[in-house]
């Protein structure tokens, strides 16, 4: 697989830390686009602020690195103006569910055709390791020195409840599966969300004694449970497990489609 066909090679080596999963996700995205035979001139990648949001700088597409939490809003504008483009949003757990939460749930409610990849590393990594809405209760962060005391969103479930057509979750360890669900997400006409569990050994891992990057990735192998199996397990058995698989894959009216019908109606009047 020639990844560099899709990358801005002169920007490498990238800035992500040793053992960070973001590079693995990037590869999965490229394999998905390559499988779908999507041309580079057909893709706009939009990001917010954070480590995962640096991804657009490395890919050879139309790339827009926006303000913290707002990628989905900017992406909505791109999609409305040029619906023929594949719009992929890369964002993080903080960017998407804290400051960007409102935009995430409304875009899901609208079911606007785009793919949103939420890299969940349980922390605000880029800024040094502050607590995020996805930092598990009891874990530590620079702004939770006595441990995190808030519940987390069930991010994928939140998007499904808000109205997204396609929602799935994977880890970076399951890289083949990850590429397959990203492919499905891009292909799907509707709001598609993939929550991607990715290790941050530097900020989250160190303070919480999770080991180095490769240890955190191998742990994902043991912690992951397929959703079909999870449905037969008890809450106690599922504690601390990562449920991976497709949560929803359904046909719902898509926003651009619906609005184009409005345009036809308006033009007939």
């Amino acid at each position: 697989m020639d990844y560099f066909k899709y990358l801005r090679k002169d920007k490498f080596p990238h800035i992500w830390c040793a053992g960070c999963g973001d590079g693995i996700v990037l590869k999965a995205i490229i394999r998905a686009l390559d499988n779908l035979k999507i041309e580079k001139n057909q893709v706009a990648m939009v990001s917010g602020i954070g480590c995962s949001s640096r991804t657009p700088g490395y890919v050879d597409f139309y790339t827009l690195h926006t303000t913290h939490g707002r990628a989905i809003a900017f992406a909505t504008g791109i999609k409305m103006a040029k619906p023929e483009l594949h719009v992929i949003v890369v964002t993080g757990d903080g960017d998407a569910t804290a400051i960007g939460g409102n935009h995430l749930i409304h875009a899901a409610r609208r079911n606007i055709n785009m793919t949103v990849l939420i890299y969940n590393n349980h922390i605000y990594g880029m800024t040094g390791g502050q607590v995020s809405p996805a930092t598990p209760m009891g874990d530590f962060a620079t702004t939770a020195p006595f441990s995190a005391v808030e519940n987390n969103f069930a991010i994928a479930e939140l998007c499904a409840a808000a109205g997204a057509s396609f929602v799935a979750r994977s880890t970076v360890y399951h890289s083949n599966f990850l590429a397959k669900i990203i492919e499905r997400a891009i292909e799907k006409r509707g709001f598609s969300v993939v929550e991607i569990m990715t290790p941050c050994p530097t900020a989250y891992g160190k303070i919480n004694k999770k080991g180095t990057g490769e240890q955190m990735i191998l742990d994902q192998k043991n912690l992951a449970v397929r959703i079909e199996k999870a449905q037969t397990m008890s809450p106690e058995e599922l504690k601390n497990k990562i449920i991976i698989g497709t949560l929803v894959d359904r046909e719902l009216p898509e926003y651009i489609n619906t609005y184009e019908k409005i345009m036809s109606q308006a033009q007939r009047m």
Partner: protein
Amino acid sequence: MNSRTYMMQGNVAVAEGAIDAGCRFYAGYPITPSSEIAEHLSKRLPAIGGKFIQMEDEIAAMGAVIGASVAGVKSLTATSGPGFSLKQENIGYASLAEVPVVIVNVMRGGPSTGLPTLPSQGDVMQARWGTHGDHPIIALVPASVRETYDMTIQAFNWSEKYRTPVILLLDEIIGHVHEKVTLPDPDELQIFNRKKPSVPPEEYLPYKADESLIPEMAAFGDGYRYHITGLIHDETGFPTNNAEKIAEMMDRLNSKLLKYEHEIIQVEETDTGDAEIGIVAYGSSARSARTAMRKAREEGIKVGMLRIQTLWPFPVDKIYEFGKKVKEIVVPELNLGQIAHEVEHAIQDRFRVHRVNKVNGEPIHPDEILNKIRGLK
């Protein structure tokens, strides 16, 4: 009879001006007293192949119009004080990333929720410095419905020409007043579009400019794949921490409008030839001032007015020259002297500037200005 004669509301003039300027995307959030702009465009845009979306909040609306503009579609958003405050971060993004976009603020009483249905001119300084960091901005202030239509087209033309967000400042009076207007034939309007790349994609540098200081702008989807970021970047569009490149970027960005001030800065002078007392006014307050000026002249007082049309960049030189002609300057505003402060600075003398300030939600009565003038005689 000309079929483009209407009894038109100021807000509707914004919408129609935008359409005639080529705007085909609106994203916004309802907020009094600007909502008529959104309501009118929600009907007009889809009928002409454009798109309208009411976003979940003001910040999302600002993001969406930048995204649409980056993808090549002229875009508009409209709001009032509280929404204008929310939009500031993304306005700064548009300024730094040099994305053409027009933002309308129909000013109402502030601060905070303030006076939603009553006029003010309280956001004029915010229009210049509302977003953080050193950045350029253009802000225009119309004083009539027809001028609102013309300035909206002007706003789009300049945002495209100079690759900058342009803020159009109405107040609740101008936004809601209905006046008879006869609009020009849209085919006869001069419409300006952003400069497209003159080189093939492999050679395109999105932030490289020639002596014009304005880089060529490719639209996403047109075959030029490049990177746009809110981080300080060099001419390739990629982020940089190199001190020299940062200085280069900041210098070009903040001086690009200076080069075109002769075109951008517009004022309207009335009866200034023999004036002894001057008025500097803008927006709806300029209308009150016009009546005060007429009454003063009837009493034999020689009053002239310099009406500001382009608020930012501020018409420093024009006001300085005006200050040399007249003995005293009266500045009526629906705020506590935000522009009077700039006038004092422009003429280098705060003792000759006299404020008529009102922030109680009522327009300035011409007699309030007249009394001030009489006192200076």
